[in-house]
């Protein structure tokens, strides 16, 4: 048959009355969408190359560019919709796995949007966060079953020694994004913002670039299946260590950083030869069972002389509650659970969109299970996977998470418009790229400021909502599902989430 290119996804409309042919768009588009014709002093656009990142639209000084969806339609078909057809066409041409970036975009139910919060009325005063202290400080790490005190002296003495803890000024951390998947400037911005806010960012499996060592008090270093860039200094640089078993966007599969992205800097950071593919195996080849994980946890604790919390990150899958229980019993000080909507720099579309469970259900069942087993205090739970705003955060915490990880939201704060083309390495916003021409577009001063603003804004909103509930410390909300009610959820959803339906009183 005839060669059949997939229809373009976007249409670029250029208002000729407004276009001054300044060529800013021509210079800026890494996908070479725009071109300038000197003969006619006109700028042309090739919509077929557009990924819909909106950089040109944002930067055009006259607002001459509009990126719209291609109105061209296939015949309406609920089953064989346009995306399905396009994917088949693409695969028929390439014979390959379809790749994508960011988190699952399928319309699975978003439970956050079916959960509502409580507020005080009459019987219990709400608290004004602008006038009264409102505490978001959160400690991540293993808590003892009880504290033992010695009352023999005049003042009581603490007999129990606490395990190492991470102190968060707000219960939001930046989730694992490796140097490699994102640019060094993006890493720096996350690190600096974490420092300014008093929280942590996570190296992902990209190792720690030498310029990032100075941010180590706010760094969680990750140990993943590829063990890239893992060495003594690396482990010691982290405030905590996270063993990555899985990721919400691609549970059960490994990672792949193409060789062309493995620049000199990345090669030295990851400790792999320049230009070679960085392949993270699907499993850790030294972890084939829970007792192997225990060994790795304790090996890392030994290596860092029990001075840092060691946690484990997994993707939320069907059996998540027993798995987390096992991980806690294996000695993890915190467990990060990444739901199906968690982001990625590159993943097979089919995996991203079809594997794993929503984070809301995962947190609910894990928290409940750990409490029933009496081990909830032994590890902190960090929820991750597509949390979009402070309401999602506060609901996650009320469901039982100690803190939450944000990745996508942080990227959006830095400029990302979710074009899902991270895997191409041509990110116009200078985030998911290593091209020095593009990475300089992310000025860490600006990005840091924006990240700090985002966390400040969310923290303020959380305080407002807490105050409204008459609560002045985040720990009084953590796991406090009485403050949640479900709207439009089935009985079994409500049961799994451990919340009552809206309308039901205490």
């Amino acid at each position: 048959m005839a060669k059949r290119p997939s229809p373009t996804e976007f249409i670029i409309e250029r208002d000729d009355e407004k276009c001054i042919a300044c060529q800013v768009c021509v210079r800026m588009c890494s996908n070479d969408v725009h071109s300038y014709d000197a003969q006619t002093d006109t700028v042309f656009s090739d919509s077929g190359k557009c990924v819909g990142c909106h950089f040109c639209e944002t930067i055009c000084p006259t607002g001459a560019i509009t990126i719209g969806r291609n109105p061209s339609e296939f015949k309406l078909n609920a089953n064989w919709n346009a995306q399905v057809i396009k994917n088949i066409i693409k695969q028929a041409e390439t014979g390959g796995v379809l790749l994508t970036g960011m988190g699952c975009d399928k319309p699975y139910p978003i439970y956050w949007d079916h959960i509502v919060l409580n507020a005080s009325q009459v019987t219990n005063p709400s608290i004004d966060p602008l006038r009264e202290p409102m505490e978001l400080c959160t400690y991540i790490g293993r808590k003892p079953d009880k504290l033992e005190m010695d009352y023999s002296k005049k003042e009581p003495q603490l007999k129990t020694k606490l395990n190492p803890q991470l102190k968060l000024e707000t219960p939001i951390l930046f989730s694992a994004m490796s140097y490699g998947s994102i640019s060094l400037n993006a890493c720096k911005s996350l690190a600096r913002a974490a420092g300014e806010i008093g929280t942590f960012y996570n190296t992902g499996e990209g190792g720690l670039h030498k310029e990032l060592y100075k941010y180590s008090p706010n760094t969680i270093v990750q140990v993943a299946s590829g063990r890239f860039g893992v060495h003594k200094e690396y482990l010691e640089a982290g405030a905590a260590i996270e063993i990555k078993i899985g990721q919400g966007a691609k549970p059960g599969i490994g990672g792949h950083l193409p060789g062309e992205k493995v620049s000199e800097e990345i090669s030295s950071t990851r400790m792999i030869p320049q230009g070679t593919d960085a392949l993270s195996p699907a499993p850790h080849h030294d972890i084939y069972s829970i007792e192997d994980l225990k060994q790795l946890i304790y090996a890392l604790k030994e290596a860092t002389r029990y001075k840092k919390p060691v946690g484990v990150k997994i993707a939320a899958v069907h059996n998540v509650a027993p798995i987390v229980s096992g991980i806690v019993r294996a000695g993890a000080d915190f467990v990060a659970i990444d739901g199906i909507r968690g982001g990625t720099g590159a993943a097979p579309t089919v995996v991203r969109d079809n594997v794993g469970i929503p984070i809301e259900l995962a947190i609910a069942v894990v928290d409940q299970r750990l409490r029933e087993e009496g081990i909830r205090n032994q590890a902190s739970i960090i929820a991750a996977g597509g949390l979009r705003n402070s309401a999602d955060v506060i609901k996650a915490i009320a469901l039982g998470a100690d803190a939450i990880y944000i990745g996508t939201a942080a990227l959006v704060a830095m400029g990302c418009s979710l074009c899902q083309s991270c895997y191409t390495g041509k990110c116009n916003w200078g985030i998911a790229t290593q091209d020095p021409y593009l990475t300089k577009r992310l000025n860490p001063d600006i990005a840091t400021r924006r990240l700090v603003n985002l966390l400040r804004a969310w923290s303020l909103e959380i305080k407002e909502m807490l105050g409204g509930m008459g609560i002045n410390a985040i720990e009084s909300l953590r796991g406090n599902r009485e403050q949640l009610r479900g709207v439009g959820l089935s009985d079994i959803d409500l049961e799994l989430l451990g919340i009552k339906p809206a309308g039901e009183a205490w």
Partner: protein
Amino acid sequence: MKKIKNQISKIKNSGYKAKLKRIIIREEYCMGCRLCEVYCLVQHSRTKNIIKAYKGEYPKPQPRLIVEEKGQISFALQCRHCEDAPCLEACITGAIYRDEKTGAILCEENKCVGCWMCIMVCPLGVIDRNREGKKVISKCDLCIGEEIPVCVKNCPNEAIVYEEKK
């Protein structure tokens, strides 16, 4: 005697030795979009309207800054308004002067005769000949009347910033 004192205080207070702002270039963040150039051109056009400046003014207005680009490095360069400004010393007409308030090195166009001495001595090469028909120079004036020069204001990546001299 009082008069002398007044005069002395006038000299002492005279202008640019106070805290002044300067444009600082941070080439590591310059994207090379040239929006600074676009806005500079508009600011120094007759209409100050971006579409008219580009589409309706002839001769085409001239930006007062230069964007240099090579490989992945780029930066916008405009007059540094040097403290020890060689152009000021080289100007044979007194057309180039320092604005006492802002410390900007400015050119009084009706004094300038276009001898290009300033072009010869400017080590940054940021003084240009006017190409709009006058035999005078063309240089950055820190956007007289604007609180922040337009190149700084419109730089999308803060690669040019306007900061108080430390």
